[in-house]
Protein backbone atom coordinates (compact mmCIF):
# COMPACT_ATOMS: atom_id res chain seq x y z
CA UNK A 1 0.00 0.00 0.00
CA UNK A 2 2.82 2.35 0.90
CA UNK A 3 4.61 1.45 -2.31
CA UNK A 4 1.46 2.15 -4.22
CA UNK A 5 1.06 5.57 -2.59
CA UNK A 6 4.72 6.39 -3.20
CA UNK A 7 4.46 5.41 -6.87
CA UNK A 8 1.29 7.40 -7.25
CA UNK A 9 2.92 10.51 -5.82
CA UNK A 10 5.98 10.12 -8.06
CA UNK A 11 3.63 9.44 -10.94
CA UNK A 12 1.71 12.65 -10.34
CA UNK A 13 4.90 14.69 -10.22
CA UNK A 14 6.29 13.14 -13.42
CA UNK A 15 2.85 13.16 -14.99
CA UNK A 16 2.56 16.92 -14.55
CA UNK A 17 5.42 17.33 -17.01
CA UNK A 18 3.81 14.84 -19.40
CA UNK A 19 0.65 16.90 -19.15
CA UNK A 20 2.49 19.95 -20.46
CA UNK A 21 3.89 18.03 -23.42
CA UNK A 22 0.35 16.86 -24.15
CA UNK A 23 -0.90 20.45 -23.87
CA UNK A 24 1.70 21.51 -26.41
CA UNK A 25 0.31 18.96 -28.87
CA UNK A 26 -3.33 19.59 -28.15
CA UNK A 27 -3.09 23.39 -28.39
CA UNK A 28 -1.16 23.24 -31.67
CA UNK A 29 -3.64 20.75 -33.05
CA UNK A 30 -6.59 22.81 -31.89
CA UNK A 31 -5.41 25.84 -33.86
CA UNK A 32 -3.74 24.23 -36.87
CA UNK A 33 -5.85 21.07 -37.25
CA UNK A 34 -2.45 19.57 -38.01
CA UNK A 35 -0.20 17.46 -35.87
CA UNK A 36 3.23 18.92 -35.16
CA UNK A 37 5.39 15.84 -34.81
CA UNK A 38 8.48 18.03 -34.61
CA UNK A 39 7.41 19.33 -31.22
CA UNK A 40 9.72 16.98 -29.30
CA UNK A 41 12.82 17.71 -31.41
CA UNK A 42 12.03 21.44 -31.31
CA UNK A 43 12.16 21.65 -27.54
CA UNK A 44 15.12 19.28 -27.52
CA UNK A 45 17.09 21.90 -29.46
CA UNK A 46 16.24 24.37 -26.70
CA UNK A 47 17.42 22.07 -23.94
CA UNK A 48 20.72 21.40 -25.73
CA UNK A 49 21.31 25.11 -26.19
CA UNK A 50 20.50 25.88 -22.56
CA UNK A 51 22.65 23.03 -21.26
CA UNK A 52 25.54 24.08 -23.50
CA UNK A 53 25.49 27.65 -22.24
CA UNK A 54 25.19 26.70 -18.59
CA UNK A 55 28.11 24.27 -18.97
CA UNK A 56 30.50 26.30 -21.08
CA UNK A 57 29.62 29.95 -20.75
CA UNK A 58 27.99 30.81 -17.50
CA UNK A 59 26.48 28.36 -15.04
CA UNK A 60 23.17 29.79 -14.10
CA UNK A 61 19.84 27.99 -14.04
CA UNK A 62 17.89 31.10 -15.00
CA UNK A 63 20.15 31.89 -17.94
CA UNK A 64 19.98 28.26 -19.12
CA UNK A 65 16.20 28.33 -18.94
CA UNK A 66 16.01 31.60 -20.83
CA UNK A 67 18.27 30.23 -23.58
CA UNK A 68 16.27 26.99 -23.73
CA UNK A 69 13.01 28.89 -24.13
CA UNK A 70 14.45 31.34 -26.69
CA UNK A 71 15.97 28.65 -28.90
CA UNK A 72 12.82 26.50 -28.70
CA UNK A 73 10.74 29.45 -29.86
CA UNK A 74 13.06 30.19 -32.78
CA UNK A 75 13.08 26.55 -33.91
CA UNK A 76 9.32 26.37 -33.41
CA UNK A 77 8.82 29.36 -35.70
CA UNK A 78 11.03 27.77 -38.35
CA UNK A 79 8.96 24.58 -38.18
CA UNK A 80 5.76 26.59 -38.44
CA UNK A 81 7.06 28.32 -41.54
CA UNK A 82 8.51 25.31 -43.34
CA UNK A 83 6.07 22.55 -42.42
CA UNK A 84 2.78 24.40 -41.99
CA UNK A 85 2.63 27.79 -43.67
CA UNK A 86 4.55 26.73 -46.79
CA UNK A 87 2.85 23.35 -47.20
CA UNK A 88 -0.44 24.44 -48.68
CA UNK A 89 -1.85 20.99 -49.25
CA UNK A 90 -5.43 20.23 -48.32
CA UNK A 91 -4.16 16.88 -47.09
CA UNK A 92 -3.34 17.40 -43.38
CA UNK A 93 -0.89 14.53 -43.57
CA UNK A 94 1.49 16.44 -45.84
CA UNK A 95 2.38 18.71 -42.92
CA UNK A 96 2.73 15.69 -40.70
CA UNK A 97 5.27 14.07 -43.02
CA UNK A 98 7.03 17.40 -43.50
CA UNK A 99 7.31 17.81 -39.74
CA UNK A 100 8.77 14.34 -39.57
CA UNK A 101 11.32 15.27 -42.23
CA UNK A 102 12.32 18.35 -40.21
CA UNK A 103 12.59 16.11 -37.18
CA UNK A 104 15.23 14.04 -39.01
CA UNK A 105 17.09 17.23 -39.85
CA UNK A 106 17.03 18.54 -36.26
CA UNK A 107 18.08 15.20 -34.79
CA UNK A 108 20.95 14.89 -37.25
CA UNK A 109 22.14 18.42 -36.47
CA UNK A 110 22.31 17.50 -32.80
CA UNK A 111 24.15 14.25 -33.56
CA UNK A 112 26.67 16.11 -35.72
CA UNK A 113 27.27 18.77 -33.08
CA UNK A 114 27.55 16.45 -30.08
CA UNK A 115 28.89 13.32 -31.81
CA UNK A 116 25.76 11.53 -30.58
CA UNK A 117 27.10 11.39 -27.05
CA UNK A 118 24.83 12.16 -24.16
CA UNK A 119 25.15 15.66 -22.88
CA UNK A 120 25.05 16.52 -19.19
CA UNK A 121 22.33 18.83 -17.92
CA UNK A 122 22.95 20.35 -14.56
CA UNK A 123 20.44 19.50 -11.93
CA UNK A 124 19.16 22.56 -10.07
CA UNK A 125 21.43 22.36 -7.06
CA UNK A 126 20.27 22.15 -3.47
CA UNK A 127 17.26 20.01 -4.26
CA UNK A 128 17.60 17.05 -1.98
CA UNK A 129 15.02 14.44 -1.17
CA UNK A 130 12.76 15.28 1.74
CA UNK A 131 10.20 13.21 3.62
CA UNK A 132 6.53 13.77 4.28
CA UNK A 133 5.69 11.15 6.89
CA UNK A 134 6.60 7.75 5.45
CA UNK A 135 6.71 9.02 1.87
CA UNK A 136 9.82 10.57 0.40
CA UNK A 137 9.74 13.28 -2.23
CA UNK A 138 12.54 13.61 -4.77
CA UNK A 139 13.69 17.21 -4.88
CA UNK A 140 14.13 17.44 -8.65
CA UNK A 141 10.74 15.80 -9.25
CA UNK A 142 9.26 18.33 -6.88
CA UNK A 143 10.87 21.20 -8.82
CA UNK A 144 9.55 19.68 -12.05
CA UNK A 145 6.09 19.43 -10.52
CA UNK A 146 6.08 23.01 -9.26
CA UNK A 147 7.29 24.33 -12.61
CA UNK A 148 4.63 22.35 -14.43
CA UNK A 149 1.83 23.53 -12.16
CA UNK A 150 2.91 27.16 -12.46
CA UNK A 151 3.00 26.83 -16.24
CA UNK A 152 -0.39 25.15 -16.33
CA UNK A 153 -1.96 27.91 -14.29
CA UNK A 154 -0.35 30.44 -16.61
CA UNK A 155 -1.61 28.65 -19.73
CA UNK A 156 -5.08 28.37 -18.24
CA UNK A 157 -5.12 32.08 -17.54
CA UNK A 158 -3.87 32.88 -21.05
CA UNK A 159 -6.47 30.66 -22.70
CA UNK A 160 -9.51 31.61 -20.68
CA UNK A 161 -8.89 35.16 -19.47
CA UNK A 162 -7.18 37.03 -22.29
CA UNK A 163 -8.07 38.24 -25.76
CA UNK A 164 -5.36 35.98 -27.17
CA UNK A 165 -6.95 32.96 -25.53
CA UNK A 166 -10.34 33.87 -26.89
CA UNK A 167 -8.89 34.00 -30.40
CA UNK A 168 -7.15 30.65 -29.94
CA UNK A 169 -10.38 29.05 -28.79
CA UNK A 170 -12.34 30.65 -31.61
CA UNK A 171 -9.90 29.33 -34.24
CA UNK A 172 -10.00 25.93 -32.57
CA UNK A 173 -13.78 25.93 -32.69
CA UNK A 174 -14.05 26.89 -36.33
CA UNK A 175 -11.23 28.24 -38.45
CA UNK A 176 -13.40 29.75 -41.16
CA UNK A 177 -15.82 31.55 -38.86
CA UNK A 178 -12.89 32.90 -36.88
CA UNK A 179 -11.51 34.35 -40.07
CA UNK A 180 -14.90 35.83 -40.93
CA UNK A 181 -15.13 37.74 -37.66
CA UNK A 182 -11.74 39.30 -38.35
CA UNK A 183 -9.28 37.08 -36.53
CA UNK A 184 -5.91 36.89 -38.25
CA UNK A 185 -5.67 33.10 -38.32
CA UNK A 186 -2.08 33.05 -39.56
CA UNK A 187 -1.02 35.29 -36.74
CA UNK A 188 -2.76 33.14 -34.15
CA UNK A 189 -1.01 30.10 -35.64
CA UNK A 190 2.35 31.76 -35.22
CA UNK A 191 1.52 32.85 -31.70
CA UNK A 192 0.43 29.38 -30.67
CA UNK A 193 3.76 28.03 -31.93
CA UNK A 194 5.59 30.64 -29.87
CA UNK A 195 3.54 29.74 -26.78
CA UNK A 196 3.80 25.95 -27.06
CA UNK A 197 7.52 26.04 -27.94
CA UNK A 198 8.22 28.38 -25.03
CA UNK A 199 6.56 26.35 -22.31
CA UNK A 200 7.74 23.14 -24.00
CA UNK A 201 11.36 24.30 -23.83
CA UNK A 202 10.90 25.33 -20.20
CA UNK A 203 9.42 22.04 -19.01
CA UNK A 204 11.79 19.99 -21.20
CA UNK A 205 14.75 21.60 -19.47
CA UNK A 206 13.39 20.54 -16.09
CA UNK A 207 12.73 17.01 -17.37
CA UNK A 208 16.27 16.77 -18.72
CA UNK A 209 17.63 18.17 -15.45
CA UNK A 210 15.83 15.49 -13.45
CA UNK A 211 17.49 12.90 -15.72
CA UNK A 212 20.86 14.75 -15.40
CA UNK A 213 21.43 14.35 -19.14
CA UNK A 214 19.99 14.67 -22.60
CA UNK A 215 20.47 12.42 -25.63
CA UNK A 216 19.40 12.83 -29.27
CA UNK A 217 16.60 10.39 -28.47
CA UNK A 218 14.90 13.02 -26.32
CA UNK A 219 12.97 14.40 -29.29
CA UNK A 220 11.33 11.07 -29.98
CA UNK A 221 10.68 10.57 -26.30
CA UNK A 222 8.98 13.94 -25.85
CA UNK A 223 6.91 13.61 -29.03
CA UNK A 224 5.70 10.16 -28.07
CA UNK A 225 4.81 11.17 -24.53
CA UNK A 226 2.94 14.22 -25.76
CA UNK A 227 1.06 12.20 -28.38
CA UNK A 228 0.00 9.56 -25.89
CA UNK A 229 -1.19 12.17 -23.41
CA UNK A 230 -3.14 14.02 -26.09
CA UNK A 231 -4.93 10.85 -27.20
CA UNK A 232 -5.60 9.68 -23.64
CA UNK A 233 -7.13 13.01 -22.71
CA UNK A 234 -8.95 13.56 -25.96
CA UNK A 235 -7.67 15.64 -28.88
CA UNK A 236 -8.29 19.35 -28.36
CA UNK A 237 -9.25 19.09 -24.72
CA UNK A 238 -7.15 21.16 -22.31
CA UNK A 239 -8.37 19.54 -19.06
CA UNK A 240 -8.11 16.20 -20.86
CA UNK A 241 -4.40 16.75 -21.51
CA UNK A 242 -3.79 17.43 -17.82
CA UNK A 243 -5.76 14.36 -16.79
CA UNK A 244 -4.08 12.24 -19.46
CA UNK A 245 -0.62 13.36 -18.33
CA UNK A 246 -1.25 12.49 -14.69
CA UNK A 247 -2.80 9.15 -15.69
CA UNK A 248 0.16 8.24 -17.89
CA UNK A 249 2.65 9.24 -15.18
CA UNK A 250 0.91 7.17 -12.51
CA UNK A 251 0.44 4.11 -14.73
CA UNK A 252 4.05 4.21 -15.92
CA UNK A 253 5.54 4.40 -12.45
CA UNK A 254 3.25 1.68 -11.11
CA UNK A 255 4.24 -0.49 -14.08
CA UNK A 256 7.94 0.10 -13.41
CA UNK A 257 7.48 -0.93 -9.79
CA UNK A 258 5.21 -3.92 -10.23
CA UNK A 259 6.19 -5.30 -13.65
CA UNK A 260 9.68 -4.04 -14.48
CA UNK A 261 11.42 -1.02 -15.94
CA UNK A 262 11.80 -2.55 -19.40
CA UNK A 263 8.02 -2.73 -19.72
CA UNK A 264 7.50 0.99 -19.01
CA UNK A 265 7.23 2.08 -22.64
CA UNK A 266 5.54 -1.14 -23.71
CA UNK A 267 2.72 -0.41 -21.27
CA UNK A 268 2.49 3.19 -22.47
CA UNK A 269 2.16 2.16 -26.13
CA UNK A 270 -0.26 -0.63 -25.33
CA UNK A 271 -2.38 1.92 -23.49
CA UNK A 272 -2.26 4.28 -26.46
CA UNK A 273 -3.23 1.56 -28.93
CA UNK A 274 -6.02 0.32 -26.66
CA UNK A 275 -7.42 3.82 -26.26
CA UNK A 276 -7.33 4.43 -30.00
CA UNK A 277 -9.24 1.22 -30.68
CA UNK A 278 -11.72 1.38 -27.81
CA UNK A 279 -12.18 5.07 -27.14
CA UNK A 280 -10.55 7.21 -29.84
CA UNK A 281 -11.96 10.43 -28.50
CA UNK A 282 -10.10 9.96 -25.23
CA UNK A 283 -11.22 10.64 -21.69
CA UNK A 284 -12.63 14.14 -22.16
CA UNK A 285 -12.71 14.50 -25.95
CA UNK A 286 -15.57 16.16 -27.78
CA UNK A 287 -16.00 13.29 -30.22
CA UNK A 288 -15.00 13.37 -33.84
CA UNK A 289 -15.07 16.80 -35.35
CA UNK A 290 -14.42 17.21 -39.00
CA UNK A 291 -11.17 18.99 -39.68
Amino acid at each position, binding site marked *: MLDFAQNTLDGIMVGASYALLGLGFTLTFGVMRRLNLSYGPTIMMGVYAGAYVSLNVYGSLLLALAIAVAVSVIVGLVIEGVCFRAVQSDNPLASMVSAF*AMWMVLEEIIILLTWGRLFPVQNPSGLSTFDIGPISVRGDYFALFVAAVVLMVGIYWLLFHTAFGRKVRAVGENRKSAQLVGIDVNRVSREIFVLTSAFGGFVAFFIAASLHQITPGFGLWATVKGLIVMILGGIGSVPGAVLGGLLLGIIELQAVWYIGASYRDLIAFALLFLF*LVVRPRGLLGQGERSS
Partner: protein
Amino acid sequence: MTDYGISVLSLICMESFVALSTYLLLITGQVSFGQQAYFGIGAYVGSSLTALAGFDLTFAILAGALVAGVVAAGVGALTFRLGGLYFAIATLAFAELIRLVWVNINYQVEVDGFMVGPKGSEGFRDIRYLLDNDISSNQYLWIIVLWLALVIAFFIVLERSRLGLAIRMVENDETAAASVGISPTRHKIMAAAMAGAIAAIGGVLFAHFMTFIDPRNFGVMLGVHSLAYAMIGGMGTFIGPLIGVGIDIGLLESLRIFSGYRMIVFGSLVAAILIFRPRGLLDEKTVHRISMRVRQALGNNRKSTRAVTDDPG
Protein backbone atom coordinates in the same frame (compact mmCIF):
# COMPACT_ATOMS: atom_id res chain seq x y z
CA MET B 1 30.69 -5.77 -59.00
CA THR B 2 32.41 -4.74 -55.80
CA ASP B 3 31.16 -5.96 -52.43
CA TYR B 4 30.24 -2.40 -51.60
CA GLY B 5 28.14 -2.07 -54.74
CA ILE B 6 26.41 -5.35 -54.00
CA SER B 7 25.52 -4.33 -50.47
CA VAL B 8 24.24 -0.90 -51.53
CA LEU B 9 22.07 -2.53 -54.22
CA SER B 10 20.81 -5.12 -51.76
CA LEU B 11 19.90 -2.38 -49.30
CA ILE B 12 18.05 -0.43 -51.99
CA CYS B 13 16.05 -3.51 -52.90
CA MET B 14 15.22 -4.39 -49.29
CA GLU B 15 14.13 -0.86 -48.42
CA SER B 16 11.96 -0.97 -51.53
CA PHE B 17 9.78 -3.62 -49.94
CA VAL B 18 8.90 -1.35 -47.04
CA ALA B 19 8.47 1.63 -49.35
CA LEU B 20 6.07 -0.31 -51.59
CA SER B 21 4.22 -1.57 -48.55
CA THR B 22 3.65 1.98 -47.31
CA TYR B 23 2.72 3.06 -50.83
CA LEU B 24 0.05 0.38 -51.13
CA LEU B 25 -1.65 1.82 -48.05
CA LEU B 26 -1.18 5.37 -49.31
CA ILE B 27 -3.15 4.62 -52.46
CA THR B 28 -6.02 3.39 -50.29
CA GLY B 29 -5.87 6.80 -48.62
CA GLN B 30 -4.28 5.64 -45.37
CA VAL B 31 -1.03 7.06 -44.06
CA SER B 32 0.87 4.49 -42.07
CA PHE B 33 3.90 5.32 -39.96
CA GLY B 34 4.16 1.71 -38.90
CA GLN B 35 5.01 -0.63 -41.77
CA GLN B 36 8.34 -1.34 -40.05
CA ALA B 37 6.31 -3.49 -37.65
CA TYR B 38 5.64 -6.02 -40.42
CA PHE B 39 9.22 -5.74 -41.69
CA GLY B 40 10.22 -6.71 -38.14
CA ILE B 41 7.67 -9.50 -37.88
CA GLY B 42 8.99 -10.92 -41.13
CA ALA B 43 12.57 -10.63 -39.92
CA TYR B 44 11.97 -12.31 -36.57
CA VAL B 45 9.57 -15.01 -37.80
CA GLY B 46 11.65 -15.77 -40.88
CA SER B 47 14.97 -16.03 -39.09
CA SER B 48 13.45 -18.09 -36.29
CA LEU B 49 12.27 -20.56 -38.89
CA THR B 50 15.64 -20.91 -40.63
CA ALA B 51 18.01 -20.48 -37.69
CA LEU B 52 16.06 -22.26 -34.96
CA ALA B 53 13.98 -24.80 -36.84
CA GLY B 54 16.12 -25.41 -39.92
CA PHE B 55 13.51 -24.53 -42.51
CA ASP B 56 14.22 -23.47 -46.05
CA LEU B 57 14.55 -19.75 -46.92
CA THR B 58 11.67 -19.76 -49.40
CA PHE B 59 9.41 -21.37 -46.85
CA ALA B 60 10.55 -18.82 -44.24
CA ILE B 61 9.70 -15.93 -46.58
CA LEU B 62 6.25 -17.30 -47.36
CA ALA B 63 5.54 -18.05 -43.69
CA GLY B 64 6.78 -14.62 -42.59
CA ALA B 65 4.59 -12.95 -45.21
CA LEU B 66 1.59 -15.01 -44.13
CA VAL B 67 2.00 -14.20 -40.42
CA ALA B 68 2.53 -10.48 -41.10
CA GLY B 69 -0.40 -10.42 -43.51
CA VAL B 70 -2.74 -11.94 -40.94
CA VAL B 71 -1.54 -9.55 -38.21
CA ALA B 72 -1.85 -6.58 -40.57
CA ALA B 73 -5.39 -7.57 -41.51
CA GLY B 74 -6.29 -7.82 -37.82
CA VAL B 75 -4.74 -4.44 -37.00
CA GLY B 76 -6.41 -2.96 -40.07
CA ALA B 77 -9.81 -4.26 -39.04
CA LEU B 78 -9.36 -2.66 -35.62
CA THR B 79 -8.03 0.68 -36.79
CA PHE B 80 -9.34 1.55 -40.26
CA ARG B 81 -12.59 3.02 -38.97
CA LEU B 82 -10.48 5.61 -37.12
CA GLY B 83 -9.52 7.34 -40.34
CA GLY B 84 -6.76 9.82 -41.17
CA LEU B 85 -4.86 11.19 -38.25
CA TYR B 86 -6.00 8.67 -35.65
CA PHE B 87 -5.10 5.84 -37.98
CA ALA B 88 -1.62 7.26 -38.51
CA ILE B 89 -1.06 7.52 -34.77
CA ALA B 90 -2.44 4.02 -34.23
CA THR B 91 0.02 2.55 -36.73
CA LEU B 92 2.85 4.38 -35.00
CA ALA B 93 1.70 3.05 -31.61
CA PHE B 94 1.40 -0.48 -32.96
CA ALA B 95 4.85 -0.40 -34.56
CA GLU B 96 6.49 0.84 -31.38
CA LEU B 97 4.56 -1.77 -29.41
CA ILE B 98 5.95 -4.48 -31.68
CA ARG B 99 9.47 -3.04 -31.40
CA LEU B 100 9.20 -3.16 -27.61
CA VAL B 101 8.02 -6.76 -27.86
CA TRP B 102 11.34 -7.53 -29.60
CA VAL B 103 13.15 -5.72 -26.81
CA ASN B 104 11.46 -7.94 -24.24
CA ILE B 105 11.55 -11.24 -26.09
CA ASN B 106 14.10 -13.75 -24.89
CA TYR B 107 14.16 -17.22 -26.30
CA GLN B 108 17.23 -19.25 -27.20
CA VAL B 109 17.60 -22.75 -28.52
CA GLU B 110 20.78 -24.78 -28.76
CA VAL B 111 21.73 -25.31 -32.40
CA ASP B 112 25.03 -27.12 -33.12
CA GLY B 113 26.38 -26.26 -29.67
CA PHE B 114 25.48 -22.56 -29.97
CA MET B 115 22.69 -20.77 -28.22
CA VAL B 116 20.72 -19.11 -31.01
CA GLY B 117 17.61 -16.97 -30.81
CA PRO B 118 16.30 -13.50 -30.06
CA LYS B 119 17.92 -12.10 -26.93
CA GLY B 120 16.00 -9.00 -25.97
CA SER B 121 17.61 -5.68 -26.78
CA GLU B 122 20.87 -7.42 -27.70
CA GLY B 123 19.11 -8.71 -30.77
CA PHE B 124 19.07 -11.93 -32.71
CA ARG B 125 22.56 -13.10 -33.69
CA ASP B 126 23.89 -15.86 -35.91
CA ILE B 127 21.31 -16.07 -38.63
CA ARG B 128 23.78 -18.21 -40.56
CA TYR B 129 21.55 -19.51 -43.31
CA LEU B 130 23.54 -17.92 -46.15
CA LEU B 131 26.89 -19.10 -44.74
CA ASP B 132 25.62 -22.61 -44.03
CA ASN B 133 24.22 -22.95 -47.52
CA ASP B 134 27.16 -21.34 -49.35
CA ILE B 135 25.13 -18.53 -50.85
CA SER B 136 27.43 -15.67 -51.85
CA SER B 137 26.35 -12.06 -51.49
CA ASN B 138 26.19 -11.83 -55.26
CA GLN B 139 23.82 -14.80 -55.49
CA TYR B 140 21.79 -13.45 -52.61
CA LEU B 141 21.37 -10.14 -54.41
CA TRP B 142 19.75 -12.09 -57.25
CA ILE B 143 17.41 -13.80 -54.80
CA ILE B 144 16.41 -10.38 -53.44
CA VAL B 145 15.92 -8.98 -56.94
CA LEU B 146 13.79 -11.98 -57.87
CA TRP B 147 11.45 -11.42 -54.91
CA LEU B 148 11.31 -7.70 -55.60
CA ALA B 149 10.46 -8.46 -59.22
CA LEU B 150 7.62 -10.68 -58.03
CA VAL B 151 6.27 -7.88 -55.86
CA ILE B 152 6.63 -5.37 -58.71
CA ALA B 153 4.83 -7.76 -61.05
CA PHE B 154 2.07 -7.88 -58.48
CA PHE B 155 1.85 -4.08 -58.54
CA ILE B 156 1.80 -4.00 -62.35
CA VAL B 157 -1.08 -6.46 -62.40
CA LEU B 158 -2.79 -4.63 -59.57
CA GLU B 159 -2.64 -1.25 -61.29
CA ARG B 160 -4.26 -2.71 -64.36
CA SER B 161 -6.85 -4.75 -62.54
CA ARG B 162 -10.34 -4.03 -61.33
CA LEU B 163 -9.08 -4.41 -57.77
CA GLY B 164 -6.49 -1.66 -58.30
CA LEU B 165 -9.14 0.66 -59.69
CA ALA B 166 -11.41 -0.16 -56.76
CA ILE B 167 -8.62 0.63 -54.30
CA ARG B 168 -7.95 4.01 -55.88
CA MET B 169 -11.64 4.76 -55.93
CA VAL B 170 -11.83 4.05 -52.21
CA GLU B 171 -9.06 6.64 -51.73
CA ASN B 172 -10.79 9.26 -53.85
CA ASP B 173 -14.31 8.96 -52.52
CA GLU B 174 -15.38 6.28 -50.10
CA THR B 175 -19.05 7.10 -50.37
CA ALA B 176 -19.03 6.96 -54.14
CA ALA B 177 -17.13 3.67 -54.01
CA ALA B 178 -19.63 2.22 -51.56
CA SER B 179 -22.53 3.38 -53.72
CA VAL B 180 -21.34 1.29 -56.67
CA GLY B 181 -20.88 -1.78 -54.52
CA ILE B 182 -17.19 -1.51 -53.60
CA SER B 183 -16.85 -2.14 -49.88
CA PRO B 184 -14.30 0.39 -48.58
CA THR B 185 -13.58 -1.57 -45.41
CA ARG B 186 -13.02 -4.86 -47.20
CA HIS B 187 -10.69 -3.28 -49.75
CA LYS B 188 -8.75 -1.44 -47.09
CA ILE B 189 -8.27 -4.58 -45.01
CA MET B 190 -7.22 -6.48 -48.10
CA ALA B 191 -4.70 -3.76 -48.95
CA ALA B 192 -3.41 -3.77 -45.37
CA ALA B 193 -2.88 -7.54 -45.44
CA MET B 194 -1.04 -7.34 -48.76
CA ALA B 195 1.05 -4.40 -47.54
CA GLY B 196 1.97 -6.29 -44.37
CA ALA B 197 2.99 -9.34 -46.37
CA ILE B 198 5.14 -7.27 -48.76
CA ALA B 199 6.98 -5.59 -45.90
CA ALA B 200 7.53 -8.98 -44.27
CA ILE B 201 9.16 -10.43 -47.40
CA GLY B 202 11.66 -7.58 -47.20
CA GLY B 203 12.11 -8.26 -43.49
CA VAL B 204 12.99 -11.94 -43.94
CA LEU B 205 15.46 -11.05 -46.71
CA PHE B 206 16.94 -8.25 -44.58
CA ALA B 207 17.50 -10.51 -41.56
CA HIS B 208 19.35 -13.10 -43.62
CA PHE B 209 21.40 -10.42 -45.36
CA MET B 210 22.51 -8.88 -42.07
CA THR B 211 22.87 -12.22 -40.20
CA PHE B 212 22.11 -10.16 -37.12
CA ILE B 213 19.06 -8.11 -36.28
CA ASP B 214 18.25 -6.03 -33.25
CA PRO B 215 15.13 -4.13 -32.26
CA ARG B 216 16.67 -0.81 -33.30
CA ASN B 217 16.48 -1.92 -36.95
CA PHE B 218 12.72 -1.63 -36.71
CA GLY B 219 12.39 1.81 -35.15
CA VAL B 220 10.08 4.58 -36.21
CA MET B 221 12.69 6.14 -38.52
CA LEU B 222 12.35 3.22 -40.95
CA GLY B 223 8.61 3.82 -41.18
CA VAL B 224 9.10 7.54 -41.69
CA HIS B 225 11.68 6.95 -44.39
CA SER B 226 9.43 4.59 -46.28
CA LEU B 227 6.61 7.11 -46.12
CA ALA B 228 8.97 9.84 -47.28
CA TYR B 229 10.05 7.64 -50.23
CA ALA B 230 6.50 7.45 -51.51
CA MET B 231 5.92 11.13 -50.79
CA ILE B 232 8.96 12.37 -52.73
CA GLY B 233 8.91 9.77 -55.49
CA GLY B 234 5.27 10.34 -56.13
CA MET B 235 2.01 8.63 -55.42
CA GLY B 236 0.89 8.18 -59.03
CA THR B 237 2.59 4.86 -59.66
CA PHE B 238 4.61 2.23 -57.81
CA ILE B 239 7.72 3.56 -59.56
CA GLY B 240 7.48 6.64 -57.30
CA PRO B 241 8.52 4.99 -54.05
CA LEU B 242 11.28 3.10 -55.88
CA ILE B 243 12.65 6.42 -57.13
CA GLY B 244 12.47 7.68 -53.55
CA VAL B 245 14.54 4.76 -52.28
CA GLY B 246 16.96 5.23 -55.13
CA ILE B 247 17.40 8.92 -54.31
CA ASP B 248 17.95 8.30 -50.62
CA ILE B 249 20.23 5.28 -50.53
CA GLY B 250 21.61 5.17 -54.02
CA LEU B 251 22.42 8.81 -54.51
CA LEU B 252 23.11 10.05 -51.01
CA GLU B 253 24.85 6.91 -49.81
CA SER B 254 27.11 6.61 -52.81
CA LEU B 255 27.89 10.32 -53.04
CA ARG B 256 30.29 10.38 -50.16
CA ILE B 257 30.31 14.18 -49.90
CA PHE B 258 26.97 13.87 -48.17
CA SER B 259 28.10 11.26 -45.66
CA GLY B 260 27.24 12.41 -42.21
CA TYR B 261 24.80 14.93 -43.58
CA ARG B 262 22.57 12.33 -45.21
CA MET B 263 19.64 12.85 -42.89
CA ILE B 264 19.90 16.61 -43.20
CA VAL B 265 20.01 16.56 -47.00
CA PHE B 266 17.26 13.97 -47.25
CA GLY B 267 15.04 15.62 -44.65
CA SER B 268 15.36 19.03 -46.32
CA LEU B 269 14.67 17.44 -49.70
CA VAL B 270 11.46 15.89 -48.40
CA ALA B 271 10.37 19.17 -46.80
CA ALA B 272 11.08 21.07 -50.02
CA ILE B 273 9.28 18.58 -52.26
CA LEU B 274 6.23 18.68 -49.99
CA ILE B 275 6.12 22.44 -50.45
CA PHE B 276 6.55 22.47 -54.23
CA ARG B 277 5.07 19.13 -55.25
CA PRO B 278 2.69 17.98 -52.52
CA ARG B 279 2.05 14.63 -54.20
CA GLY B 280 5.64 13.87 -55.12
CA LEU B 281 7.71 14.01 -58.29
CA LEU B 282 5.63 11.45 -60.21
CA ASP B 283 2.12 12.42 -59.13
CA GLU B 284 -1.08 11.13 -60.72
CA LYS B 285 -1.31 14.02 -63.20
CA THR B 286 2.26 13.59 -64.43
CA VAL B 287 1.81 9.83 -64.73
CA HIS B 288 -1.40 10.35 -66.65
CA ARG B 289 0.24 12.89 -68.96
CA ILE B 290 3.22 10.63 -69.62
CA SER B 291 1.05 7.60 -70.29
CA MET B 292 -1.18 9.66 -72.60
CA ARG B 293 1.85 10.84 -74.51
CA VAL B 294 3.25 7.33 -74.79
CA ARG B 295 -0.13 6.04 -75.93
CA GLN B 296 -0.42 8.88 -78.42
CA ALA B 297 3.01 8.13 -79.84
CA LEU B 298 2.15 4.45 -80.15
CA GLY B 299 -1.23 5.34 -81.66
CA ASN B 300 0.36 7.60 -84.26
CA ASN B 301 2.78 4.86 -85.19
CA ARG B 302 -0.03 2.40 -85.64
CA LYS B 303 -2.01 4.87 -87.68
CA SER B 304 0.93 5.68 -89.92
CA THR B 305 1.75 2.00 -90.47
CA ARG B 306 -1.86 1.37 -91.36
CA ALA B 307 -1.76 4.33 -93.70
CA VAL B 308 1.28 2.84 -95.39
CA THR B 309 -0.25 -0.61 -95.79
CA ASP B 310 -3.61 0.79 -96.84
CA ASP B 311 -2.00 2.86 -99.52
CA PRO B 312 -2.90 1.09 -102.74
CA GLY B 313 -0.21 2.80 -104.74
